[in-house]
C-alpha cells in the first residue's frame, strides 16, 4: 500500500471513516510496522496543526501588517509639558492605596530573596535606605550615613576592594576609571517611556550627573516623580535598578542594585519619590533605571559618574 491509496487510508483511519473490519486490519498493520506508525503520526500532527481555526488567517495578517510596519524607536517618549493628568481631587482613595503600597514595598524589601548573582562571601546583606523624606545630608559622610551605606551586589567577577577603615566588603562594580559608555543604555537615556500607563520624570536639579566619592562612599541623590494617565494599577510597584557601564551586565540582567521605590502621596498631579543612598562603589560610570517591578521595561534611564575626590 503506498501513494495516494495509503494517504486515503490514513486519512480515513484518522477521521474514523474506516469500516470496523478495515479499522481492525489497519490497526494490525500499524502494530507491526514502525514506519507506518510514524507516517500516521505525521499526518495526524499535520492535520491538527494546519486545521487550527483562524491560525492561517492570523499568520497571513501578521505577515501583511509586519511588512508594512515601520519601527520608530522614539515613539512613546513623552514631553513632560504635554502630559495631561487628571486632577488629584478625583483620587481621594489614592493615599490609602499608597500607604498600602509603601507597606508592601517595605515588606518585600525586608523579606525578598537575595539576588542570585550575589556571591554570599562577597556581598554583605545589610542594605539600608534613608527615609525618602529625609533631607539630603551634607556631602561628607556622617556616622549615620556610614551606617546607612548600601552595600551593592557584586555584578561580575571583578576584584572586590576592601575598605581599609572598617574592612567590610566594598563592591567595586564599574570598570574602574574607564568611564566608557554602554551604548545599549546610552540609547535609552532620558527616554521617558510611557509604560502601560506610567511615565517617569526625573527632577533635573537632584539628578546625579557627577557624584564625588568621599572616603569610599558615593552619595547618590535621585528625585523624580511618577505620572500616570489616571490611575495606579492595584498591583503596581516600581523599582530602581543600578547597572555598571559594562555591556554584558545590562544585556544579561545583572543589576548591582534593585530596590523598591516608595512613592509619596500624589502631589501636583504626580507621585514624587526620592532615592537617597550612600553607595560603596568604585569610581566609574553607572546607569540607573526606573522600571515597573513585574515588567522591567525601563520607564526612565539615566547615568551618573562616580569620581574620586579631587578628580
Amino acid at each position: 500500500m503506498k501513494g495516494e491509496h495509503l494517504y486515503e487510508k490514513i486519512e480515513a483511519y484518522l477521521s474514523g471513516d474506516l469500516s470496523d473490519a478495515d479499522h481492525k486490519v489497519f490497526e494490525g498493520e500499524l502494530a507491526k510496522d514502525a514506519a507506518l506508525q510514524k507516517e500516521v503520526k505525521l499526518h495526524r500532527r499535520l492535520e491538527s496543526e494546519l486545521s487550527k481555526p483562524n491560525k492561517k488567517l492570523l499568520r497571513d495578517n501578521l505577515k501583511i501588517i509586519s511588512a508594512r510596519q515601520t519601527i520608530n524607536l522614539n515613539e512613546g517618549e513623552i514631553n513632560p509639558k504635554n502630559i495631561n493628568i487628571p486632577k488629584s481631587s478625583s483620587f481621594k482613595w489614592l493615599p490609602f492605596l499608597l500607604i498600602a503600597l509603601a507597606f508592601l514595598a517595605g515588606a518585600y524589601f525586608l523579606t525578598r530573596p537575595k539576588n542570585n548573582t550575589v556571591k554570599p562571601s562577597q556581598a554583605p546583606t545589610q542594605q539600608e535606605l534613608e527615609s525618602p523624606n529625609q533631607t539630603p545630608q551634607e556631602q561628607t559622610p556622617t556616622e549615620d550615613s556610614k551606617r546607612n551605606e548600601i552595600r551593592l551586589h557584586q555584578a561580575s567577577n571583578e576584584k572586590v576592594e576592601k575598605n581599609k577603615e572598617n574592612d567590610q566588603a566594598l563592591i567595586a562594580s564599574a570598570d574602574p576609571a574607564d568611564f566608557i559608555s554602554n551604548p545599549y543604555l546610552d540609547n535609552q537615556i532620558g527616554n521617558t517611556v510611557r509604560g502601560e500607563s506610567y511615565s517617569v520624570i526625573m527632577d533635573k536639579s537632584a539628578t546625579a550627573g557627577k557624584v564625588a566619592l568621599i572616603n569610599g562612599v558615593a552619595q547618590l541623590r535621585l528625585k523624580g516623580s511618577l505620572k500616570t494617565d489616571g490611575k495606579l494599577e492595584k498591583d503596581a510597584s516600581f523599582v530602581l535598578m543600578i547597572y555598571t557601564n559594562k555591556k554584558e551586565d545590562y544585556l544579561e540582567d545583572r543589576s548591582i542594585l534593585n530596590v523598591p521605590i516608595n512613592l509619596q502621596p500624589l502631589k501636583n498631579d504626580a507621585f514624587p519619590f526620592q532615592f537617597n543612598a550612600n553607595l560603596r562603589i568604585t569610581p566609574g560610570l553607572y546607569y540607573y533605571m526606573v522600571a515597573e517591578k513585574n515588567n522591567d521595561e525601563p520607564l526612565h534611564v539615566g547615568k551618573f559618574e562616580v569620581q574620586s575626590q579631587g578628580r
Partner: protein
Amino acid sequence: MTINQDEHISAILSGDMKGLQRIYDLYLNRIARFITSKGGNSEDAKDIFQDALIIVFEKAQGPNFTLSSQFYTFLYGICRNLWGNRLKKKRTSGVINSDDETYTSEEDIQASIEAEEENQVFWDAFDRIGEDCQKLMHLFFEKRRMDEISTIMGHGSVNYTKKRKYKCKEKLLDWIRQDIRYTELKL
C-alpha cells in the same frame, strides 16, 4: 488610554486585521526598544513580535486561559523569553561569545515557545507549496467536502481534485521530511 485587554485576545484569536493592527500600533515600538536595547535590530523586533502574537494565540486557546496580567506585560514576557532563546542559540552557534545566559524564563512560556517551534515546521512547509496547493489544502483541513472543494477551486471533476489534493499533500510532507528539524519532531 482605555484598552479593553480582552479585545486584544479576541483580535488574535479571530485573526482580525484591524484589531491586530491596533496591537502593532500600541506595542511594537515598545517591544522594539527592548529588543534593540538587548542587541537586536528592528527586523529582529518584528520577528519576535510576530512570533509572540502566535504564541499568545496558542496560549489563549487553552481551556483555562485567563489574562492574569496586563496584556502588554504578558506579551512582553513572551518577547523577552523569545529573545533570550534566540540569543542563546546565537551564542551556541558562536556568533556571540558571552557569559552564561541569565534570562529568567517562565516554564510555561518556554514550553509554549518550544511547542510553537515544532508547529513552525508544518507552517514553513505550508508556505512553500504554492498558492494553489495552499488554498486546496486549507479547504481540505477545514473539512470541506471534496465536491465543494472542487467547485471552489474550479476543477472540472472531483476525481481531479482528489489527485491534486494528494499531490499537494505529498509536496507538503516532502518539505517537512526534508526539514532539518524533522528528526527532532515529537511524533
